[in-house]
């Protein structure tokens, strides 16, 4: 009886193992920087992107003020974007914004409760800009080239490591 139980446990463990492997092995899709499709903009430089998300007022080519929207805190997208664009680790980002607020140099971009909401806001508010996983990109938004490269391009800046 004891032996049967042991064997059953071992079988269950073996059954569970292959199911988790693909998740771990699956590569993260790159991040897509998106704006409203009405905005006449297809490309943005890393520097501009950095300027926008560091809270410095920046105007789009059609005169609209960019409204940067950050992915939820501690999300993969947020961490990847901060590291790649701002060049800062999460703690450093927090410290950066504390310093700026103390000096009254501006507020951080709004943080979205979800990336999906970001897509909807971007689609409905001209000037809104955010970053989402390329996986969830839908219609109504335009994916911008960053430094001349689309997410699908090799050497794309916001690709997952």
């Amino acid at each position, binding site marked *: 009886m004891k032996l049967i139980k042991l064997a059953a446990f071992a079988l269950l463990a073996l059954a569970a193992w292959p199911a988790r492997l693909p998740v771990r092995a699956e590569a993260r899709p790159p991040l897509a920087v998106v704006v409203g499709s009405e905005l006449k903009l297809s490309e943005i430089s890393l520097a501009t992107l950095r300027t926008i998300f560091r809270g410095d007022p920046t105007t789009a080519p059609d005169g609209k*003020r960019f*409204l940067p*929207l950050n992915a939820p805190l501690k999300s993969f997208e947020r961490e990847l974007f901060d590291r790649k664009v701002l060049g800062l680790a999460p703690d450093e980002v927090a410290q950066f914004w504390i310093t700026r607020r103390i000096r009254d140099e501006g507020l951080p971009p*709004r943080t*979205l*409760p979800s990336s999906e*909401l970001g897509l*909807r*806001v971007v689609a*409905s*508010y001209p*000037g809104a800009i955010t970053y989402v996983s390329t996986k969830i990109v839908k219609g109504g938004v335009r994916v911008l080239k960053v430094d001349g490269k689309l997410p699908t391009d090799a050497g794309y800046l916001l690709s997952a490591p």
Partner: protein
Amino acid sequence: MNTPDNQPALVSPHERARITSSLRMSIALLAMVALIVAGLTGLILYLVSSVFDSLTPAITQDLEWKARRGAVELSRTAELGILIHDPDVVREAASDYLRSPEVLNVVALSADGQLVFGYGQASEQVIAAMSQTANEVHRVGDRLVAWAPAMIEGAEVGRVAVAMSTSRLRAGDALRAQLSLAAFAGGGVAMLLALGFVALYIWPVLRLTQQAFVRLEHTTEQALEAARLKAQFLANMSHEIRTPMNAVVGLSKLMLGMTLSDKLRRYAEMIDASSRALLSIINDILDFSKLEAGKYKIVPTPCEAATLVQDVAELLSGKADEKRIDLVYRIAPNVPREVEVDGDRVRQVLTNLVGNAIKFTERGEVYISVEAQPLDEQRTTLKVRVQDTGPGIAEELRARIFEAFSQGDGTLVRKHGGTGLGLAISREMVRLMGGTLGVESELGKGSVFWFELPVRVLDATSAVRGQATSLGKRALLCCENVHARGALTEHFAAWGMEVVHAASLAEVESALQGPAIDVVIVAESQSGEAGREALATLRKLPSRPPVILLAQTRAKPSQHDVTAQLAQPVRMSALYETMAGVLEPGRVRPANNQLRSQARSYRGQRVLVVDDNQMNQFVAAEQLALFGCDIDQAFDGQQAVEAILRGDYALVFMDCQMPVMDGYTATRIVREREQGKHTVIVALTAHALEGERDRVISAGMDDYLTKPLRPQALQKALERWLEGTVVGDAPEPERADDGLGDSSSALLQLFLEQVPMQLEQLDAAVALSEREEARALAHKLKGSLLTVGADAQAALAQAIQHAVEQNENEQAEAKLTQLVQGVIELEKRVRGELAQRARKEAHG
């Protein structure tokens, strides 16, 4: 008078007053309870109100703050939802608020006023409020509403409102109302309980207490009535018993003064002795009853301690003399001269103790000593001891002798008589005066009865008066009695004398061989013969110093040739005066009257003596006769006026207080009617008061003499008015003795006739409460007593006069009893004196 079984049928005014008082007390109690309950309720209400008054604004503020904060916060977190018109996003952002029970509404409007998100009922009222000023709290129905604009990049994308419920405030209000109600209800219940308590418990207790009081009052009234009746009965009986007894005593005395056959005399003497014994018993029982009833009052008055003891010693010296017992007293030098004490009571106690001591002592002596132990500057304790050489008292009997109706030994009761109340009365009297009375005794050796009294000192100088006149003189004191010797020696020392003692004949002879003796004092002892032998020896001496005999027997003049004689117990002042007279001849008279031989003659001078008292008349006439005056008599003022206006008197001696017309009035009339002449009128007054002289002078009299009339004073008056020689008011020398020895036999006979009769009249007047008559009789009796030098008895007569004037009947009766005793003693001595003189005359 009501008995417990016979309560009054109607409610008496007194009982009604009690019931009213009880009702008042109940109402007061109720009012007090109501007041307390109302007070407590008010206090609770006040506290509740205070708490809620301070809580309500705080809660309101909190709700307002929450509404404002909620609106502002949601405007920053839900703006994207508003922007994209997504109610779910807004709901997500407002999820925390939606879970709060206090948040009634959350409303989000787009910039164009369209509803993006609405939560809660009656949102339209909230939406209406959102058109008003932002960030302010608006009260909308049962909620507080605040809204804030949702801004993106400086542009309003919509509005968010939060409505907070005011239910907390309402709950507070409800709680306040509930608490207030509870307080009122509690107060009401407490009031009802209190009322119930009063009605069920207090009221019956009050009723019972009140009934008990009424019963107690009835009982007390009955007891008081009974006590009053008893006291009244005693007072009546006192009168009823004493009056016939005084008559029996007085009449037997009168009878004894008559010529009787031997048999009748014996009967009369038995009646006299028995009635006095019975009177003494009655007095004891009445005193005891008074003490028991708490009717005895202690009245402290200024008294000379020495005089108190001297009075008692003199009063009882006759008894001691009869039993051949020495009666000696000693006043210690530390005894203050004057103290505040009830002298009559002290005298009574001391008389009882000394009387007992004499009664139970068959041979030896009774020694009274007084010492003082100072308590402070103003108070001292007088320690009085009465020591006898009687049979003593066995230890087992000592405690019982102070019990009422008890004597140490039943055989003694039978032998000595008495009630056995004397010591019980004495002890109670001493206790009333704040002192203690006790006894020390040894069977076969005698007893010491003592009492100690705390007294106030009025004159702290010593009762043993220091005198300087005899300074340096040597005295030979021949005295066998140790105590008498000690007491005399103390006084001689105080007078600055050197004393040589001789207790036997041999010692006397030896002392006379030594340095010169200025004076010899021989104090006789009842038990020893040394004094008499010494006198016999002294008489044989060719040249001898003056001798003063302190004789044991008053009435018996010494058969030896002595310079002066005084009776024991001797008054020290009298001894001093006598001694001074002996040592400095001419200073004052010695005991043997030298005046008569020196008297000038006023033969042929007519003198009128006006006095209603026969004894005073007699004394004045007797003395004036010595000066050769022709004497006329008048017995009242009216007779005097007639006599003066009719006759031609060189001098008138006028008594002031007389029946028919007093001396003042008589003198005024004489002065009015005299024509061109002035009859010299000298007042005779018993008032030794300041101002009396002014009174007599203002009445028109020329001079005054105090009664009893003294030869020296009379001589001075005669010198002054009959010869025109003015003699200064020299101080009256103190009397050396009680005067019996100086009084003529005729005067003493007159005394025996007059005084008992006057006493009897006074007793009847006091008994019948004839105040004016009693006063006059007491005054008259005082005059009579003073003529024979009975100062102590005269003082009692004066006290009776005073008591009668003050309408103090009991006091008058008490003094009268003492006076009867005193007069009885005096009579005995007068008779003795007369008998002695008769024997002397018979022997040639």
